[in-house]
């Protein structure tokens, strides 16, 4: 086994990764789930794989390529849906597969062996670097500030865009910024959970929170907590069992969802019985 210093660094890295991943995923995920953008976010994630492939091919950090692809595809879909010239779900479906195709083409065109492909698809602790953790930390700060400062503006635009347009001329600006930040959040979390599974990191925690609260602000808080439990536990299991971290995180989160669902159902039943008895 590794030296204790290495293990210590590893735990710190894991802990910080789990904290930042759950903050970013909780904030972005609550928006995505509330606004029913899960499919769009899945499209952005898979489109960004094209950027990873091109990043490999031209020899830059694949995450930078993924960020460019993710943001451009997010803005593209948002723009097309505003113009309403194309069916949004079809556009996303095309983008989804096209990004994957480009990614695979360029990875296979890249000379030499590409050992990290699995880590991008399913996440890997070993490839999560210091830079990744710092980037996620900065992203956490940006999202907390953005949602903290513009909370009501963002909430009201996403709840009722038509009404928001009657008092604000910034509706489209906010939509584009928020969608870009979500794309960036997804891309930065690819290292943690992988392309295939990252969308669940965003969508499962808010769904756990929504089992017992319907207030947007509280959903964010509980999502971050649920996300932390899921990522930290998943990280630990992944480390000891040698399974890709994305899979263990999602597995833990689903188990957590089932448990919370069971508990809330039980409480509901008991309180119903009580009201019937009295």
């Amino acid at each position: 086994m590794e030296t204790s210093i290495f293990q210590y660094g590893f735990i710190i890295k894991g802990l910080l990764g789990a904290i930042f991943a759950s903050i970013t995923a909780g904030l972005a995920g609550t928006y995505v789930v509330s606004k029913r953008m899960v499919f769009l976010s899945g499209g952005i994630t898979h489109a960004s794989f094209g950027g990873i492939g091109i990043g490999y091919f031209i020899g830059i950090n694949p995450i930078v390529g993924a960020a460019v692809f993710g943001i451009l595809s997010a803005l593209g879909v948002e723009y097309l849906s505003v113009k309403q010239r194309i069916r949004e779900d079809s556009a996303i479906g095309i983008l989804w597969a096209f990004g994957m195709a480009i990614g695979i083409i360029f990875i296979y065109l890249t000379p030499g062996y590409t050992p990290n492909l699995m880590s991008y698809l399913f996440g890997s602790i070993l490839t999560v670097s210091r830079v990744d953790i710092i980037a996620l930390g900065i992203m956490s700060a940006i999202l907390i500030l953005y949602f903290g400062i513009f909370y009501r503006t963002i909430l009201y635009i996403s709840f009722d865009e038509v009404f928001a347009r009657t008092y604000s001329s910034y509706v489209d600006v906010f939509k584009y910024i928020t969608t870009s930040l979500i794309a960036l959040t997804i891309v930065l979390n690819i290292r943690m959970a992988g392309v295939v599974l990252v969308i669940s990191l965003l969508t499962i925690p808010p769904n756990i929170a929504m089992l017992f609260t319907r207030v947007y602000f509280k959903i964010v808080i509980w999502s971050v907590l649920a996300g932390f439990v899921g990522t930290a536990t998943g990280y630990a299991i992944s480390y000891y069992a040698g399974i890709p971290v994305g899979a263990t995180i999602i597995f833990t989160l689903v188990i957590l969802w089932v448990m919370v669902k069971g508990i809330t159902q039980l409480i509901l039943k008991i309180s119903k019985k009580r009201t019937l008895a009295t």
Partner: protein
Amino acid sequence: MAYLFEMYSLSASYGANLVLQDVNFRVNENDFIGIIGPNGGGKTTLLRVILGLMKPVTGKMVFNSDLLNGNSIGYLPQMSTGDINYPVTVTDIILSGLMIGKGIISRMSASDKKKADTVIDELGLSGMSKSTLNELSGGQMQRVFLARAIIGNPRLLLLDEPGNFVDTTFENDFYEKLKELNKRMAILMVSHDVGTISSHIKSFACVNRSLHYHPSPEITNEDLLAYGCPIQLVTHGDVPHTVLKYHQ
């Protein structure tokens, strides 16, 4: 009587499709105007122009800046615009009616929240302030959206098909409420339910690309034909009935 706004030979279009043509229209303080006309005739477009969501292609629109500016128009859109499953509470939805005139960095003050509580009581929504829309009935939801429209105490209230989701038990209360509100604000109400609204409004405007103003609440079939304003008549009574055209 002081006017709130006036439109002069105004036209509006979606691309090449001209929806409003040469509209002259004046709305005064304390008006209560029912806006009727066929679907696609331009009723909602008229509201969109008033709200500044659509720019007229020709003609102009003049607001009486003493009484009315962008901040003092209340708006009740058609029900379909907000997602009823969205995790946002009744109080927060109503508070969004105060976003008009606030910047993008908006905090709601204690007095804003007090305004929300007042309007919640006024519209009989007490006890539902922390609910989300999917826990409410259609009539209650409509009251939430009405509350959002009037919380800022506007001088002009625009209602787009408010009857669509009002349950019958609330219907009378709803129109009574509008009558009361009409004492302090002018109301424009889009509807295709001429039968129901005629007993509540003061005058009609018939919109079918052009706009014809009819200065009394009674409107006859001949008027409608003269205005080129075919509409479906919906009536309410003890016995359900259908009105057919005369035999040839």
